[in-house]
């Protein structure tokens, strides 16, 4: 979410993540995927300047129109970065509907799903199934058969000679963009709206997020790695997700994942922590800035 409030902080976090991947996997990432698939033209543009050759995003109907998400697109206002659009119908078949007993397709078998994927043949080059890791074992518990489904899926997909699996970098190198994908406003993969409303729609969320990002200059100037780390953690989008008061639409989903009794509790606890953190930062700043003052004090004590 940092991009919405501070491009500097956004870059800092992306660089940190890049270093982490290098450290653990000895790979330098080439394709970018933002938190909760939050995306717009401007993010694509900034990410391009940071050296990435592709970016992931939601294939939102209101921006796609009649077009299919199954090609690579060029984000409006960019030079050569390519965007991968989530095929939300096929993705949600697995991520949301897989265990829904009221769904006409339940229980979904790998061969059935593969046959839907194969229908793309002739009108698409990529089928982008994007979903949380939580899909496997949390949204869809083991008893739903999700792991057996995954076991069989690659074989079933590969039964069609035109289909195989590629890494994002391979696909980005292999296929050309077919059209411009113009997303002026933020999109995401959350809730029915697929916008920022899962985190930033009510007064509490805006207040909490506004307050944490307002601390940027002070936190950074403490040069205290612990405080900067803590500040980063307080930016985690889930904090704001828990404060969401969509009781009347996606509320049950938010509630399922929230450790709090209510969105108001989420907000109250967060604001208490934040108030405490603000004090800590102020104190740290007093310690940092007047280095000389501290020394002088020491001298004066020795004198007396």
């Amino acid at each position, binding site marked *: 979410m940092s991009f919405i409030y501070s491009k500097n902080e956004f870059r800092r976090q992306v660089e940190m993540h890049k270093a982490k991947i290098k450290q653990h996997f000895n790979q330098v990432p080439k394709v970018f995927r933002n938190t909760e698939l939050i995306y717009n033209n401007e993010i694509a543009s900034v990410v391009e300047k940071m050296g990435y050759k592709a970016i992931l995003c939601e294939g939102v109907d209101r921006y796609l129109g009649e077009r299919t998400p199954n090609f690579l697109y060029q984000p409006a206002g960019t030079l050569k970065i390519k965007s991968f659009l989530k095929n939300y119908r096929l993705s949600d078949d697995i991520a949301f509907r897989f265990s829904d007993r009221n769904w006409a397709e339940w229980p979904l078998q790998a061969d059935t799903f593969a046959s839907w994927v194969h229908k793309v043949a002739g009108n698409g080059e990529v089928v982008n199934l994007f979903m949380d890791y939580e899909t496997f074992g949390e949204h869809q518990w083991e008893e739903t058969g999700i792991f057996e489904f995954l076991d069989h899926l690659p074989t079933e997909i590969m039964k069609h000679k035109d289909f195989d699996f590629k890494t994002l970098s391979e696909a980005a190198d292999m296929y050309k963009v077919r059209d411009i994908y113009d997303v002026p406003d933020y999109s995401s993969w959350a809730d029915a709206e697929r916008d920022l409303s899962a985190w930033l729609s009510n*007064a*509490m969320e805006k207040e909490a997020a506004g307050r944490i990002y307002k601390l940027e200059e002070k936190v950074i100037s403490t040069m205290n790695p612990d405080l900067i780390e803590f500040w980063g953690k307080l930016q985690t989008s889930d904090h704001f997700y828990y404060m969401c*008061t969509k*009781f009347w639409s996606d509320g049950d989903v938010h509630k399922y994942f929230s450790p709090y009794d*209510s969105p*108001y509790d989420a*907000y*109250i606890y967060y*604001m208490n922590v934040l108030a405490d953190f603000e004090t800590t930062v102020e104190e740290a700043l007093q310690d940092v800035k007047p280095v000389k003052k501290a020394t002088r004090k020491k001298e004066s004590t020795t004198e007396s």
Partner: protein
Amino acid sequence: MTTPPILDELTSKADLPKILMLGWEFPPVINGGLGVACHDLCIALSKYANVTMIIPKSNPDFVVKNLNLIGLNTIDAKTLRNIGHTDTYKKVKQVHFIDTHLNPYYNGNASPHHDLQNLTSQYLKTVKVGDETAEIFQIDDLYGGDIIKKVTIFGKLAAKLALSLDFDVIHAHDWMTMIAGMEIKAKTGKPLVVHVHSLEVDRGGPQSKGWVYQVEKKGMEYADILMPVSNFTGHIIHDYYQIPWSKIRPVHNGIRPVEPFKSAPMFKENMVLFVDRLTRQKGPEYFVDIAERVLQKDQNVRFVMAGTGEYFNPLLERAAQRGIAHRFHLTGFLNLDKVRKLLSIADVYIMPSVSEPFGLSAVEAVQFGIPAVISKQSGVAEVLNGALKFDYWDINLAASYILNLLHDPVLVENVTQDAYKDLENISWDHAAKKVIEGYNAFHLLPEMV
């Protein structure tokens, strides 16, 4: 849940289901929420059904549109005696006033309705029904042990009267009318629905096993469907009366729309408001404890309790003992206008009820745009998303909610906005539809052609 087609298709009033309601309190004679709830539900139901309501006592000047209201006080005992065991309708004559007024909730020494006694004493009349003599209707004996007899006599009179009426369903409200409901069901074979607004277990605590509890248990066992005003009450019916869930269908109360207003504050301090009877069920002593916690952190708050009850004096003492009497105000009984005046200046509303079947007062606070801090042991917690909820014993959490609301306008804005949205779904029309849906789901109504 979808509305059954019957609600939309039927246009002719004659085709509508015929409900025989049995009520106890009814405007203008009301003591608490029951009278208002019965009245408003009846009005809403009259859109979907022909409703006849039998109550112990009606005011001849009080006419309700679309509602056939029969006060037993307006019916001659002789007329009643002459009603035969046939379906033939006999004209009901208004001759005598029989007062069966009692107050099922109020246990204190002083009555909040002194004027009511004076108003009605002239209507006292001794009647004879079978072998029963009617000294029990003595108005001076409001809270005596004769409640049992009053309720029993009401049951007999109402059952007699019912034989002259045409109806499909008997719909009784709370224990005071359950005996009447059972008698009528036994005599006519018509299905009995019991609407549960409040139970002895709410009022007296989980160990209640007295006569009222027994009547409630028997009445609910004998009923075809129970319609508690919340899931919370549904659970009590199931857990404490051993009634199977299969015949429990909660119907949440609605609320009458009001024109909220704001007034200039009375105090320079913030104000936290409690409006209810001061009785065990409402958890008033927790309010004192919560107030104490709040005042430890913020002296700039006043706590106002509107209402009366047997806890009045103990609460005064408790507040004094805690040394917070200077910030704690007990107003005694207030009429609706004065309660609204308080609502127009309050900053936070609190309802620490120990066992609250619904809790209309919290919804009234919401109508006035006041953020509400309510106990989870309430029915209203099920329909108010826009409220801060605590377990009634968790005084620390309640105090922290109050403090947060008093110091964080963003939280107040969010809670009250959410609560306004909730209000759209809290209506008597919704409740009436749910009642009819319930009749249909249990096939209580004769097949419509």
